[in-house]
């Protein structure tokens, strides 16, 4: 992305929370920003990469991104890194000692929690890191606050010489709202100053830094007590009063416009005395926080009576439709009139794209018998769904490697002939999979590894990575050679195959041969994601109606451009009843990959004649 001219100061812009944070990072004079893509955090770095005067990178994983930001902050530059909630699990090794060294240049770490699990494998509350690492946490409630708190976080970070956590949720990152922006101010790098006692954390050094960390925490608590970001909205109906933070604040205000509210913007360390004083002004104190009872537990431990997760849900968002009936019940009020129940409509789960190179892989895997497939995080996790049902585990980035190894070594007697496979994408492999493969090689595991190299971080929108030879700006960058990489990890050259996933017979034969070999093999597929520029569309295919026998083989490929137009029951010569599925291809959607042609026995699928019109299937 080319650098753009930022909008002038004082402009009121319609910004997502991510865009608002990016603007504030730029205005704060930040010089280095790093991240690994992950929903809902991705757009922060994408946006930052468009601003001038700031070094931005896609790092290979979140731990590296944090370490890059730490180094820059040690050098005295303002630095920023962003990640989704699970990213901090990876980065936390660095974080937990960073809190001892602190920083010179301001360092802001944005962590985006996927409250409600729009696109994640779990739901975590990243505010825990503030308590765990004894670091301050800001919690914005909309785009304007995301912008303002990012700037406040840089200032606080420099004043206390410690990193600051900016805790976002999906409902901040991806909500667009109006925000008034300001001017950029420059912050030159102070320069790295050698200080072994501070920057080299040996036991002897660290033990002296721990008391300083606790002193800092006390000073930060006083800061939170005095902060204008922790304020009271006076209310006229004090039967209940709310302590709340983040997007829950907006939901509380929307639902109970007359109730007093103490809004926490700098929510860690907790301003306990401010809360105690507020509690004295209301009949009943409710803590509305997403998602774990952190504030609530601390209040109860400090003798401040409150109600929280006894009545409010411990997962998902505290949206008005969640809050209103629960508080009404607490107050002994009748619930509002019932809303019509939703109609029963089929589910519409995400699908793989038309012509996705993963379709050929999962079609082939679905044809193999007696296998267990350890999967990983990315678009290809969808292989667990219909029609392939060809993925058996998913837990965390890169886990397919270690889990496959464990499935091999821990197999029971009944599974002694089972073949173990691992499926992982290019970006996930570079993120955290390489070490796992090294483990399989070193410890002589019997696993067939499929690296699905589609030259992009597909799930998050096709970001560049070291596998496609382009950097965050789209400029040329060194490109990883996966075959050489896995060979250097110790995989035998004859056990490494680079395969075009659109050539189903080759893919099938390679897989069938390699799963029989009792040692580690790596099969690398080499066709790009259909959503990136590298993908070239071809002339679409169509179905000749008279030739289609309804066998349904093409339907098993799982391409969304193939539609079953008619079903018929038929009896086979063996007497078995089968359902025939007569198909059509939506030629306007088809990009001519040719996957469906290959399992079609009657040759009913042919190229649309050049120049002939393509069409959308009518389903009325």
């Amino acid at each position, binding site marked *: 992305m080319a650098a753009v001219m930022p909008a002038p100061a004082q402009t009121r812009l*319609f910004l997502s929370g991510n865009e608002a944070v990016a603007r504030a990072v730029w205005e704060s004079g930040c010089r280095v920003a790093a991240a690994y893509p992950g*929903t*809902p955090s991705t757009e922060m770095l994408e946006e930052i990469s468009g601003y001038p005067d700031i070094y931005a990178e896609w790092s290979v994983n979140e731990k590296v991104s944090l370490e890059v930001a730490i180094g820059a902050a040690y050098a005295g530059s303002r630095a920023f890194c962003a990640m989704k909630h699970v990213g901090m699990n990876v980065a936390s090794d660095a974080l937990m000692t960073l809190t001892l060294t602190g920083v010179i240049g301001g360092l802001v770490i944005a962590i985006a929690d*996927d409250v*409600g699990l*729009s*696109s*994640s494998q779990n739901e975590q509350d990243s505010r825990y890191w503030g308590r765990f690492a004894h670091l301050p946490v800001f919690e914005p409630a*909309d785009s304007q606050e995301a912008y303002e708190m990012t700037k406040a976080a840089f200032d606080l970070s420099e004043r206390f010489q410690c990193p600051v956590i900016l805790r976002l949720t*999906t*409902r901040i990152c*991806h*909500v*667009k*709202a*109006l925000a008034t922006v300001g001017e950029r101010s420059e912050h030159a790098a102070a320069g790295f100053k050698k200080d072994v006692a501070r920057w080299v954390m040996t036991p002897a050094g660290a033990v002296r830094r721990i008391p300083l960390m606790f002193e800092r925490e006390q000073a930060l608590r006083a800061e939170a007590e005095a902060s204008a970001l922790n304020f009271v909205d006076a209310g006229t109906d004090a039967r209940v009063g709310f302590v709340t933070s983040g997007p829950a604040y*907006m*939901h509380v*205000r*929307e*639902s109970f*416009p007359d109730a007093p509210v103490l809004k926490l913007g700098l929510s860690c360390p907790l301003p306990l005395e401010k809360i105690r004083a507020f509690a004295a002004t209301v009949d009943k104190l409710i803590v509305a926080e997403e998602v774990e009872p952190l504030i609530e537990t601390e209040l109860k431990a400090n003798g401040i009576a409150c109600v929280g997760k006894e009545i409010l849900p411990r997962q998902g*968002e505290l*949206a*008005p*439709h969640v809050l209103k009936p629960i508080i009404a019940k607490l107050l002994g009020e009748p619930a509002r009139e019932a*809303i*019509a*129940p*939703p*109609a029963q*409509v*089929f*589910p*519409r*789960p*995400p*699908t*793989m*794209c038309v012509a996705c190179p993963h379709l050929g892989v999962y079609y082939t895997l679905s044809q193999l018998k007696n296998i267990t497939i350890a999967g990983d995080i990315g*678009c290809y996790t*969808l292989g667990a769904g*219909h*029609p392939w049902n060809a993925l058996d585990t998913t837990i965390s980035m890169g886990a397919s490697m270690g889990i496959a190894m464990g499935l091999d070594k821990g197999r029971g007697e009944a599974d002694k002939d089972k073949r173990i496979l691992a499926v992982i994408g290019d970006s996930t492999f570079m993120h955290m999979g390489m070490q796992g493969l090294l483990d399989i090689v070193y410890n002589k595991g019997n696993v067939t590894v499929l690296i699905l190299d589609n030259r992009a971080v597909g*799930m998050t*929108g096709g970001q560049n990575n070291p596998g496609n030879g382009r950097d965050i700006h789209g400029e040329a960058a060194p490109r990883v050679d996966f075959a050489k990489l896995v060979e250097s990890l110790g995989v035998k050259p004859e056990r490494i195959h680079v395969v075009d996933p659109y050539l189903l017979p080759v893919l099938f034969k390679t897989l069938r041969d390699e799963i029989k070999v009792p040692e580690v093999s790596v099969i690398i597929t080499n066709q790009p994601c259909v*959503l990136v520029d590298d993908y070239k569309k071809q002339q679409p295919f169509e179905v000749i109606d008279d030739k289609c026998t309804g066998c349904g083989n093409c*339907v098993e490929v*799982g391409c*969304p451009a*193939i*539609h*079953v137009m008619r*079903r018929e029951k038929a009896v086979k010569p063996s007497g078995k009843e089968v*359902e025939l*599925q007569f198909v059509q291809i939506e030629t*306007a959607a088809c990009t001519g990959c040719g996957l469906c042609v290959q399992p079609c026995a009657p040759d009913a699928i042919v190229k649309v004649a050049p120049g002939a019109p393509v069409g*959308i299937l009518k*389903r*009325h």
Partner: protein
Amino acid sequence: MERDVTNILVVGIGGQGVMTATEILAEAAIALGFDAKKTEVAGMAQRGGVVSSHLRFGPRVLSPQITAGSADLLLAFEAAEALRWCHYLKPGALVLMNTAKLVPPVVNIGLYDYPADPVAEIRAQGHDVHAFDAMDIAVTLGDVRLGNSVMLGAAADHLPFPAEQLLAAIVKRFASRKPQLVDLNRRAFEAGRAADAAAGHKEKQAA
């Protein structure tokens, strides 16, 4: 506060331009001086999943989410999606819907049925429905991607501001990104507006 806020729910499936349409509606409202918030769950939307985009505008907007039973208007880019979300409407509120059916793989492989008559089911819930084939209109004009402007045109006479305000937002958007497409989208907008008027006329006659 609630009574001054307009709630518009825009629904469809990933790749149809639902989020862009909502953004243009928001831009029109903001140009008139309203506060506005727009939210959706977008993470996996481009993989053909369900997309529902909430737009709230008024003097001041707090929560970005529309609560079930409180939407003033449902703009549905796909027939089954209109049915899926119509319980978000206030009683008797209007559904503007594209009658085109986009059938997902789970229906194709026979795991689920596509609803037989989404329009009738929505009417049975007490809502007015203006139904028209936005996809057909777009394809006739030359590009299925014009469906977005067709749908906005259909909404134009059901907003608390003049239709021209919405058209201006569309023109502004294309003028800055793809100026060659301004006229085509203007035509799509007018075609959608006409399709809605015709559908509304039919609805009245039926009643």
